């Protein structure tokens, strides 16, 4: 009796937001967006107008378009960072933010204070925080996961480096490692290959293919138009916040 109470106490978790730790609705697509309208942050000006797309589990969608087209805005909205003005956005059949432990978001590098005194290993560990919640410290299991993804991205030798002492490509890989450490099923990547070295580009391209084989769903904003057809199952073209066209393989069906 006492043992089971102790066990329960040990396993009890205080998630940062219980609303964000629901189980997905069975059979629903990874992402379902219908007539989505989103404002620019703190302005009453539309950043996205009438976006509709459906991303089945295990597929790869590329977001393409000129700067300012709304690619980042769409990713941020899916990640729950921007409020929806109108329309529907379901992640695994649930409203935005309901199962965020399953959604990993890789921001553009500029969003992070790289001078902060923290090393790469700890940065990657922050990917586990969504599962830890308040007051819990990372377990040996969490560190194992972290070390494994660091190795997978070829960063083991740099694990103890302060994050500001990494090159741009290494920082990008560190962020990707964090997204993997989260063990999310839907992975949102904002320009993962922009302004990085060739080695990092290759690592990231291979990783996207591998993740897809593992059954993960990916939504990637990209400037790299050369390998769209080989690397992705579908492409959503955006211009000035509107969806210009949607090119897709059989796996991705536009909602009509």
């Amino acid at each position, binding site marked *: 009796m006492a043992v089971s109470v102790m066990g329960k106490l040990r396993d009890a978790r205080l*998630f*940062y*937001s219980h*609303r*964000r730790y629901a189980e997905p609705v069975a059979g629903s697509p990874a992402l379902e967006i219908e007539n989505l309208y989103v404002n620019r942050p*703190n302005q009453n000006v539309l950043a996205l107008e009438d976006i509709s797309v459906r991303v089945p589990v295990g597929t790869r969608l590329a977001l393409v378009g000129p700067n300012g087209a709304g690619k980042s805005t769409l990713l941020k909205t899916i*990640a*729950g*960072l921007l409020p929806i003005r109108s329309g529907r956005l379901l992640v695994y059949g649930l409203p935005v*933010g309901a199962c*965020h*432990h399953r*959604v990993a*978001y890789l*921001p553009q590098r500029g*969003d*992070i*204070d*790289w001078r*902060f*005194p*923290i*090393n790469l290993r*700890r940065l990657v560990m*922050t990917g586990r*925080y*969504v599962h*830890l919640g*308040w*007051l819990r*410290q990372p377990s040996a299991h969490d560190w194992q996961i972290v070390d494994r993804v660091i190795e997978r991205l070829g960063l083991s030798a740099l694990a103890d480096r*302060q994050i*500001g002492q990494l090159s741009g490509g290494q920082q990008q890989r560190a962020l990707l490692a*964090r997204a993997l450490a989260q063990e999310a099923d839907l992975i949102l990547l904002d320009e993962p290959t922009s302004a990085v070295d060739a080695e990092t580009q290759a690592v990231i391209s291979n990783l996207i293919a591998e993740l897809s084989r593992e059954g993960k769903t990916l939504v990637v904003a990209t400037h790299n138009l050369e390998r769209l057809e080989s690397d992705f199952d579908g492409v959503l073209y955006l211009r000035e916040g509107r969806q210009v066209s949607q090119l897709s393989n059989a796996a991705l069906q536009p909602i009509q």
Partner: protein
Amino acid sequence: MTFLSDLVEPFIRFQFMRNSLMAVVLVGTLCATIGVYVVLRRMAFIGDALAHTVLPGIVFAYFNNINLFLGAVVAGLLTAFGIGWLSRRETLREDTAIGIMFTFMFALGILLMSTARSFRDFTHILFGNVLGVTPSDLLLISIVAVIVLGTLILFHKEFELTSFDPTHAEVIGLRADRLRYVLLILLALTVVTAIQAVGVVLTSAMLITPAATASLLTNRLPRMMLIAVSVAIGAGIIGLYASYYYNVASGAAIVLACTLLFGLAWLGRSLARVLGSLLSK
């Protein structure tokens, strides 16, 4: 031998010196630990502002025979909430809002002070007098230390994450703005204790200089906090001796000692760099 006995003697002979030593250790630990966040999150201006805005609270408490510490805590908390509230709305830039709030409160404090018969009663508030710390002050400082350090330890990973990557924090449902509020409240409490030691005018030095010194010497967060705490306590003790033997203002002596240690760290780092580049050639 005499030097050693000079070092130990004041603390053996006088209770007030033992109290001051306790105060310096507690205040140094508090200021340096939270100061690391103040420096890393670029909140130096808010820290300075908080120290100044508690003045009217202290003067009000003085006139009404309430514990000065309590008056300061209330004014500090009100300011922390005020700043948090003002910076939520984006009609004014945050630093502008703080600038207006803090000069208003400080002016109010000075105006209240000028209605008193004697300005002298307030010099220890403005410039601090660690030698005058009473046992009840010490008790309050200890309570604040437990609250502030306890919160910082319990929520270390959350404070750390929201400091360098608030976006990721928001994505996983951790409200960065609420943690900032908590940090502001802890900062307000810390500032109030620091006023005991170095006064309103010099408190921001206790927050910033030890942490800045530590940031020159390491790029690991826990180690940075440890070094900052050592610097603050060391400077506090140097200040105490200076105040005891040369009869100078304790607050100013502590801050000057802090700055001296910062200068040494700067020099040491520059030398290490020069040596390093010479050796690698």
